[in-house]
């Protein structure tokens, strides 16, 4: 688990470009894009029937994407694999808490992975820290106001952003870098990063509020 301190990996700074270079996508993975409803059905089978085949399907679909997500936080390949496994085990354990009325499967799994990453950070700072108390972690899904329709609206809003705006938003979710570091990486002034972020946020808010 301490692979994150590997100097080779941390020099690597997996960003958008390097992330792409790291990616090894098999054609099989590319073809398998389950519909949101199909994903919900898999989750139902996992929660109610403890169906391992459905779980394996979810793992094959989300596992490699989750790995990219964890790699973006300058984790080594081994550490990223570990965290993907931890995420998917949590999905198995807490499957009955998934509520399709409140969120899509990808959104729910994102929040599980996010909490695992936060907890991983905590354990790095304090190795004696107790194992995660899932309920005190940042669980907003369980009492939040999520719904699956909103997931679709958000997805559409995201694709309506310009490529630059999408990049800024993606970096906000998938990297630890400050706006200053993002500016360095994109080779643009800090002020531009700030204004581009604000514009992207405003555009996103506009698109979401049009929908509702």
């Amino acid at each position, binding site marked *: 688990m301490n692979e994150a301190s590997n100097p080779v990996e941390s020099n690597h700074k997996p960003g958008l470009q390097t*992330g792409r270079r790291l*990616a*090894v*996508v*098999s054609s099989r*993975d590319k073809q398998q894009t389950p519909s949101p409803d199909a994903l919900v059905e898999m989750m139902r089978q996992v929660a109610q029937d*403890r169906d391992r085949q459905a*779980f394996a399907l979810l*793992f*094959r679909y*989300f*596992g*490699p*994407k989750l*790995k*990219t997500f964890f790699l973006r936080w300058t984790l080594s*390949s081994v550490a*990223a*694999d570990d965290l*993907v*496994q931890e995420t998917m*085990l949590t999905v*198995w*354990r*807490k499957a009955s808490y998934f509520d399709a009325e409140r*969120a899509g*499967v*990808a*959104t729910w*799994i*994102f*929040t599980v992975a*996010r909490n695992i990453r*936060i907890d991983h*950070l*905590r354990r790095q700072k*304090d190795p004696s820290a107790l194992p995660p*108390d*899932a*309920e*005190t972690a*940042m669980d*907003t899904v369980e009492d*939040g*106001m*999520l*719904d699956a329709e*909103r*997931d679709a609206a*958000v*997805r559409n809003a*995201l694709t309506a952003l310009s490529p630059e705006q999408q990049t800024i*938003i*993606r970096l*906000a*979710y*998938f990297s630890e870098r400050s706006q200053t570091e993002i500016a360095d990486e994109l080779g643009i002034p800090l002020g531009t990063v700030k204004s581009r972020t604000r514009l992207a*946020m405003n555009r*996103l*808010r506009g698109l979401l509020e049009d929908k509702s």
Partner: protein
Amino acid sequence: MTTTHHATDETLMRYAAGTLAPAPAIVVRAHLASCPACRARVGEYEALGGALLEETEATQMSATALSDVLAMLDDEDAAAPFTPPPRAPVEIEGIRLPDALRGCDIGRWRWIGPGMKMSRVGVPQDPHANLILLKVGPGRALPDHGHVGTEFTYIVSGSYTDRFGTFGPGDLAEMDEDVDHQPVVDNGDDCICLAAMEGKMRFNNLIGRMLQPIFGI
């Protein structure tokens, strides 16, 4: 509880993305518990995270990743089913505090000046977090201060007024660095607030500077 002062969208997005530091995240979570509007926005930003995850390219996992996890499911199923731990109310000397503080180490009130008490809050996720509870008497001014980094303040009870308006229970005040403000507690009750700073506080007057070592922030 009707809230009139909210978190900024940037903060809510950082909260949803999981990039807000632990102490500010606790303050934001306290506000979310009393603010359906901000909760809905966090839901949207979590959905954005889900959408970004789905469009992320795949990275090949180790050959045994799936079989390893499937083997672990046996242990999972043998273990007791997941049940959330009991939720005792969080208090300081009999005063109910936001549930967001569950798991934190809450000390006693300490006198830090006339009509002013403070309790440092230990955050298990971040030993260096700057999170404090403040209790300030009616009519009292909080030390005039600016900050290095953003300050997040959640009003637990009572209210105060500064040049940005009146902040009451459930409200969240988010003050950027380079903003100087001097909140004064409104008449009536003590004002109890929960404050997190991303960086150190910067006091502008003598009393504030004398307090700095006591705050330790």
